[in-house]
C-alpha cells in the first residue's frame, strides 16, 4: 500500500539493478509503536470511563387523586383481590380477599409462584362465572419499614407474572397490627 511499485511483480525486481540511477531508497515504514501506545491508552481510558448500561425506566401509573365522578370507577370483587404488605427486613405478607384476612408470610423469591398460582385461580373463577377476565387485582401496600427496592421488586413481579391490575395503596392500621412481630 505504502510502497511504490514500478510495474511488474515486486518480487522479481528485488535486488536487481535497473538502468537508471536511483536515490537511496528510504524506508516507507514509520515506527508506529508510540502511535499504537497512544491509541490503546485512549481506548483503555474510554473503556474505563464509559457507562455501557443505560438506565431503564419502569412506568408507574398512579390513580388520579381527586376523582369527582365515582360511577366510572370499576368495582372489584373480594374474591379477585389480593393484598400484599411489604414489611421491613425484606419480608412480604399477603392475604386474599377483603374480609377476615388470613395473613401469610413469604419472601420475594416465593411470592412469584404464589402470584402466578393465584392469578390462574382467579382467571378460572372469572371464566366459570362469566365475569370480565381481569385476573387477580393486587393491592401493594408498602409499610414505613420497607425500602424503595422492595417496592420496585414488587412492581417488577407484576410485570413478570403479567398481572395487569395493581395499585400502590397506603397500608391501614388494622393491617399493620396483623403483621407478625
Amino acid at each position, binding site marked *: *500500500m505504502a510502497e511504490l511499485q514500478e510495474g511488474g511483480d515486486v518480487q522479481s525486481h528485488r535486488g536487481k539493478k535497473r538502468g537508471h540511477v536511483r536515490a537511496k531508497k528510504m524506508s516507507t*515504514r514509520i*515506527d*508506529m*509503536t508510540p*502511535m*499504537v501506545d497512544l*491509541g*490503546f491508552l*485512549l*481506548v483503555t481510558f*474510554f*473503556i474505563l*470511563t*464509559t*457507562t455501557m*448500561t*443505560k*438506565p*431503564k*425506566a*419502569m*412506568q*408507574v*401509573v*398512579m*390513580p*388520579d*387523586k381527586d376523582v369527582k365522578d365515582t360511577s366510572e370507577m370499576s368495582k372489584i370483587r373480594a374474591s379477585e383481590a389480593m393484598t400484599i404488605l*411489604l414489611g421491613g427486613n425484606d419480608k412480604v405478607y399477603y392475604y386474599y380477599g377483603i374480609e377476615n384476612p388470613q395473613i401469610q408470610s413469604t419472601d420475594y423469591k416465593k411470592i*412469584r409462584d404464589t402470584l*402466578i398460582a393465584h392469578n390462574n385461580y382467579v382467571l378460572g373463577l372469572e371464566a366459570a362465572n362469566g365475569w370480565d377476565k381481569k385476573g387477580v387485582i393486587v393491592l401493594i401496600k*408498602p*409499610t*414505613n*419499614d*420497607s*425500602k*424503595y*427496592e*422492595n*417496592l*420496585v*421488586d414488587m*412492581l*417488577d413481579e407484576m*410485570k*413478570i*407474572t403479567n398481572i395487569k391490575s395493581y395499585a*400502590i395503596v*397506603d397500608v391501614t392500621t388494622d393491617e399493620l397490627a396483623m403483621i407478625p412481630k
Partner: protein
Amino acid sequence: MAKVKPPKASVFIDMTPMVDMAFLLVTFFILTTQFRPDEPVQVNTPSSTWTSTPPEHGKVTITIAPDSRVFFDLDNQNFRRDLLQRMGDTYGISFSEDELNAFATGSSIGIPMSSLKGYLDLSPEDRRKVQQPGIPVDSTKNMSNELGIWLINARIAGNNPVILIKGDKLSNYPAVKNVFKTLQDNKVNKFGLITSEEAAPTTKQLQ
C-alpha cells in the same frame, strides 16, 4: 570462518491494522461516551426487568438518597435558567445573571430555597464541597413543600418534561411516599422509576 547467517528477518512488524483497529475503537468510544455530570449524591438504583429507556432530553429527575434527602434536576440548560427565574418569582427572590448561569450549568440541586442564593454565589469548587441538605418535601400542597413548587415550575419551564424518580435501593419508603404524594398532588400520575437492567426470567422458569 564466516558464520552462516539466517536471512535477517525484519524487526518491524506491520502495525497498520493494529493502529486502524485501535483508532476505530477510540472513535467508537469517543462518540458513544457521555460524561456523567457531577452528582451531589451517588445512588445505587434497584434493578428490574423493564427495558424501556428514558428519553435523552426533556426530563426531570428526582433523586432520593438513602438518607431520604431529595434532589431535583431538569436536564436542559436553557430550561434550567427559566426554571430558576420562575422559582425566584414564586418565592420572591431575584437571582443575578451569574447566579442564573451557575444554576443553568449545574446538575441536581438539593438546597432549600432560603439558602439557594448563597449557595449559587459560591465558587464552583466550594459548591462541590457543600453537603446539600436536600429539597424540603412534606405532604402538603403549600409553599413549604418545595419539591411541589419545583415540579410546577419545571413543567412550565421544561415544556412538559418526563418525570423520573431515581431512588436508592435502600431509600426508606416514607421518603418515597412523600415524593409520590407530591407528584399526585400536582397531577403527575404517570412517571418512571429509574432502574438498572436485570435479566428477565425465561418462560420456563415461570412455569
